[in-house]
């Protein structure tokens, strides 16, 4: 009769799954998990079945077929005879170009506006408030269309530049023509062209460009060494040697020599036939998209910057002022570096937004990823599901790259606790 002393273990009843606190949370998680999986299974099987009913298969071989359509101003050589895959790559590159251009410009503008909103100048600060509110509260698509139609309606068509007495004339010593299609700017030509390096995939890079990059980087490294040497000399002797002329020589002279060696000169655009040729035509679609994305995202970045600055205790700037540091240097040396750790995390989201928002480019005919793979390719091949999945995958990868890069940066600027 000894075992009667041990309290009988309460037998498990089914109702305990709901009424017993020990099991309840687990029960619900299992139910929700099953429901989610069932929904996922239903979605997939439904899609597969419906595709079967429509007689469509799920294949990506359309990517290797001839695209047959042209893309204005592709960043890498592309013709209608290339494959859909290459067209998609052109789209991705265009997306990257607009993203990089947009992020750089939006950051610069956003920081300026964010700081300006806190300015003591009442009018200036209010003007910036108006700008921020106007851009934050109107959909981006409208801004893109507005900027684009302003370009289209206000600027003259290329044939207005023709004739003895043209209705429009080029600016900057006849070097730049603003038209309602593109901005024609001069390109650089070389009398002594060293040819170009073939990177494969019909992508080439000019040897001259490589030479300039090497010389610039080398010059900068030498400049750093000179500064280091100057510092060491100063530490040893207390006398800092004058180095600015040395830096100037190593930074500028090699480039000048290269310019002379290659015979670099400008080729101004010229109106021939229907359009300007000879120079580089930067399409209004790109500029309008870039401008609209920049102005729109900068408004958000401005708010982030303002929040970051306001997060820094006023005592910091008061201490800086007490030391006699000028307001501008206080901002650059004391406030902004500390504000960065508040600013950077939300800034990552803005960069991601900008990249994703670039898919609105199709509204102005700029052929980025949504325009090529998700637009014409999808339409010509009828591979909606494959194209959309591929596009989602590419955007996801790009987003992850941007956010991990920015997270690395964040790790560098955030408050170091030692």
């Amino acid at each position, binding site marked *: 009769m000894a075992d009667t002393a041990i309290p009988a273990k309460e037998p498990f009843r089914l109702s305990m799954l709901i009424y017993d606190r020990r099991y309840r949370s687990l029960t619900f998680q299992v139910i929700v998990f099953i429901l989610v999986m069932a929904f996922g299974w*239903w979605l997939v099987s439904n899609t597969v079945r419906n595709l079967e009913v*429509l*007689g469509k298969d799920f294949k990506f071989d359309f990517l290797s077929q001839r695209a047959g359509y042209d893309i*204005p101003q592709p960043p890498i050589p592309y013709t209608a005879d290339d494959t859909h895959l290459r067209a998609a790559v052109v789209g991705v590159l265009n997306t990257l170009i607009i993203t990089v251009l947009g992020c750089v410009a939006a950051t610069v503008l956003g920081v300026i506006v964010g700081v300006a909103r806190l300015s003591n100048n009442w009018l200036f600060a209010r003007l910036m408030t108006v700008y921020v509110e106007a851009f934050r509260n109107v959909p981006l698509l409208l801004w893109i269309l507005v900027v684009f139609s302003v370009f*289209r309606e206000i600027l003259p068509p290329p044939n207005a530049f023709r004739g003895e007495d043209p209705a429009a004339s080029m600016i900057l010593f006849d070097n730049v023509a603003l038209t309602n*299609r593109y901005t024609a700017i001069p390109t650089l030509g070389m009398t002594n062209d060293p040819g170009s390096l073939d990177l494969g995939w019909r992508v080439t890079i000019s040897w001259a460009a490589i030479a300039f990059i090497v010389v610039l980087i080398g010059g900068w490294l030498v400049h750093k060494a000179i500064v280091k040497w100057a510092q060491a000399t100063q530490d040893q002797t207390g006398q800092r040697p004058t180095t600015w002329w040395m830096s100037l020589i190593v930074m500028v002279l090699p480039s000048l020599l290269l310019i002379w060696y290659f015979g670099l000169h400008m080729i101004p655009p010229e109106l021939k036939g229907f359009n300007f040729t000879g120079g580089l035509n930067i399409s209004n679609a790109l500029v309008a998209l870039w401008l609209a994305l920049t102005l729109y995202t900068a408004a958000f970045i401005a708010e982030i910057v303002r929040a970051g600055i306001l997060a820094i205790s006023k005592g910091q700037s008061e201490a800086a002022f007490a030391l006699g540091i000028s307001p501008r240097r206080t901002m650059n040396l004391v406030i902004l570096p500390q504000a960065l750790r508040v600013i950077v995390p939300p800034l990552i989201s803005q960069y991601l937004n900008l990249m994703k928002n670039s898919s609105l480019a199709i509204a102005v005919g700029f052929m980025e990823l949504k325009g090529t793979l998700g637009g014409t390719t999808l339409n010509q091949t009828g591979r*909606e599901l494959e194209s959309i999945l591929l596009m989602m995958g590419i955007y996801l990868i790009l987003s992850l790259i941007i956010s991990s890069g920015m997270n690395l940066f964040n790790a560098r600027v955030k408050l170091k606790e030692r």
Partner: protein
Amino acid sequence: MKKTIFLGTVAAATLTAGMGMADTLADVKARGELNCGVNTGLVGFAAPDANGNWTGFDIDVCKAVAAAVLGDPSKVKYVPTTGQTRFTALASGEVDVLARNSTWTFSRDTDLKLDFAGVNYYDGQGFMVSKDLGVTSAKELDGATVCIQTGTTTELNLADYFKANNMTYTPVNIDSNAEGEQQYMAGACDAYTTDASGLAATRAAFADPENHIILPEIISKEPLGPAVRHGDNNWGDIVRWTLYALIAAEEYGVTSKNIEELSKSSQNPEVQRLLGTSDDLGAMIGLDAEWAKRAILASGNYGEIFAANIGEQTPIGLARGLNAQWTQGGLMYAMPFR
């Protein structure tokens, strides 16, 4: 909670079944309305007027099908589709029939799993330029900027044509005819290219149509016609023979004016079969005997529809040309009603 799950399962099952099944006729009848995919706005072919009523050459196909199937030409829901969205709209079941300027091509017929019911307009791609440009032939367009609707056959033809003639061009990609019109009018492109009928329709809407010319070169064949999903053969038959009924009616001189009289008095056996007074053809496609009669009554026979929307008496002013009856030297040829 049990009840919710049960209802959810039932709803899911119904949805799956509904999408899997391919009986468009039953769906349309149950809905009491025909979903017709049309152009977002191309005067003469499909465009809403000031009161929001859709009119045009393609719209009348929708009306004829609705009249044949539902007995009322007004029971149509017009779904505007762009060059980009049209086939997805059809494949996904958003529309029952696509009556839009869509070219019948091999890959669309096979790979895209569409069925073209027939051709209601034989077209070809052309170029429109402003008169002051001084261009008289498409061969002179080397280096030009060309506005082109993305996702269309015209986009591919354009690339092929310039390549074949060893010329270059800069495309300006646009999404709809309205946008193309804006760009072209602002001079953002030198030439606008699309089907010649579309160019004529677009030009007709200009304030100064006389200042724009359509170049003589026709660079492609663009047979335009209504399309349905592949796999529902009976529905395909209904749309096909509704179109043929309109064409045959013109051939036999059956018009919306004399149709009542002819259905009583005509001694022509083929007209009798067409109008359902003998041999119940309608029953063979799941409709009643007078389906074709209603279709013709909706907006007249093919010739009447052509004349009312895009013919020479309209601002669009298209000649019948290839689209005349085969008896008049054209290509319009309805298969026999027997």
